[in-house]
């Protein structure tokens, strides 16, 4: 790789080359925080609307135990729901791919299920199952299964004629075709869907906590807002964002590690 080229083009290659791509966003966020700090210091931004970054940071160090307790709960709900939803979505996609009859029967309902605003059923589900982890995990799973289901279903059924012909000539079984061709070639779509579901999982967990829980970052945001503890509220919001980013980062990392499957999807 010539160095003159990598200087001009955005490179997502090895580490030294990536610094060029990482630096601009870092500069931007530092500038924004400085602006925020300055405007809070001069009173341009009222304290009740947005406390200074120092105050929010202080919240992290003074009330770390409280934040950690709520964050742990939210993480558990979001990750549990995400895992359950992704598994259910993937399982559904496999099932509907392998059994055409089920596909004809269930696909319209799978589409329709997306139209149900599941969060508004939270009170009902809480009445049915009680408060706590289980109903929230179920709601998160229901809200996040769909992108994975749809992407994998499409991926598994987008057939490359040449590859199918090759496997046919080799007398491959339908299961071999699924594992060796259809699943690997649908992985890029699967990862795109996982990223959509990951952020959806945290949003759903947070909102569900407003109604169905007395613990978790969503609950903390709501309660601290009611008591005008704005620094606590912002600390909770940042914690939730950081956790979402961490999950997204993890998914991107796995995607990169599986680069053979996810970045080389071009036809050869």
């Amino acid at each position, binding site marked *: 790789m010539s160095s003159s080229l990598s200087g001009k083009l955005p490179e997502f290659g090895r580490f030294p080359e990536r610094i060029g791509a990482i630096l601009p966003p870092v500069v931007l966020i530092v500038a924004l925080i400085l602006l925020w700090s300055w405007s809070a210091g001069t009173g341009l931004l009222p304290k009740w609307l947005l406390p200074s970054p120092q105050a929010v940071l202080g919240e992290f160090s003074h009330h770390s135990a409280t934040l950690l307790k709520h964050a742990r709960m939210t993480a558990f709900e979001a990750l549990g729901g995400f895992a359950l939803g992704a598994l259910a979505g993937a399982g559904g996609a496999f099932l509907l791919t392998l059994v055409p009859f089920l596909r004809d029967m269930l696909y319209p309902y799978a589409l329709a299920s997306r139209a149900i605003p599941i969060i508004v059923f939270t009170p009902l589900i809480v009445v049915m199952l009680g408060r706590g982890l289980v109903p929230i995990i179920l709601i998160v799973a229901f809200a996040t299964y769909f992108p994975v289901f749809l992407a994998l279903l499409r991926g598994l059924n987008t057939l490359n004629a040449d590859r199918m012909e*090759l496997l046919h000539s*080799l*007398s491959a079984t339908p299961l071999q075709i699924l594992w*060796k*061709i259809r699943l690997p070639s649908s992985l890029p779509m699967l990862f795109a869907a996982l990223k959509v579901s990951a952020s959806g999982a945290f949003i759903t967990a947070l909102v569900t906590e407003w109604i169905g829980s007395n613990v978790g970052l969503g609950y903390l945001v709501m309660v601290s807002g009611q008591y005008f503890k704005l620094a606590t509220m912002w600390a909770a919001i940042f914690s939730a964002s950081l956790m979402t980013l961490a999950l997204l980062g993890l998914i991107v990392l796995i995607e990169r590690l599986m680069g*053979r499957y996810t970045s080389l999807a*071009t036809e050869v």
Partner: protein
Amino acid sequence: MRGPALSLAFEGRRPWHWMGLDIVMLNAFPDEATRVRAATLPAGLYADGIDVVFRRGSHSVQALKDCSLDIPRGSWATLIGASGCGKSTLLRVFADIVKPTAGTALLHGVSPAEARANRIYALVQQGSTMLPWRSIIDNVALGLEISGLPKSTRYARAEEALALVGLKGFEKSLPSELSGGMRQRAAIARALTLRPRFLLMDEPFGALDEITRDRLHFELLRILEETGATLLLVTHSISEAVILSDKVIVMTPRPGRISEIIEVDFGRGRTPDLRGDPRFVQYEAQLRRALHQPA
């Protein structure tokens, strides 16, 4: 016995043992009835009165009409003709990808479906059809993996085939790291790992530059002589047809049919010097006349 003289001529010198084809043959037809049938029917590729009609709704297209051919075991044949003449379709009938509307196709006396189930033919497609996430050796070993062979055996055979096509040392590479010509060679290696009695190739060199193509032609011929496999190859290159054939099957379109079969008498041990042979020019001219004849 319909098995023609040419196949007998090569009986004596067949070096099957290298590819273990005798073992393949004994195992290929596990039931007695098929084995008996296979022994009494033409040992090569055989087609009688093949019609293929493609239907889409009320619309139908006759892709092939009354195609008959007999390619003795161990000999080499090419299908040539303008696009739309059904040459690929005829190849696909033998590969059990297209079902004929009428007529019989046999590979070593068995139907294309049985041939496919017993893996006695190998298909090389127009593009190399590499799976981009698999290394070259895993791509080459794909056929053996699907037949359920243990890992050590399939890697040993894949390495053997890679060496044969001159790709030793590229086992761990990804297809995207290889040139088009090398990928095509890998596709040929994948076909060879199956130790096929029949090599069905659909314009395997179509996308390659002339230099690579020239080299691969004679590599293919060398491999065919070593293994004794029967070749059916689709091409639209006149010189390729002459170089690679004992029989050139000329096809004309609308509907696709066989218009002429030209015997090319270059025997075995062909070398690139062939192009300088006056008969080569004659065969080319004869073939060109056949191709330009009004249907």
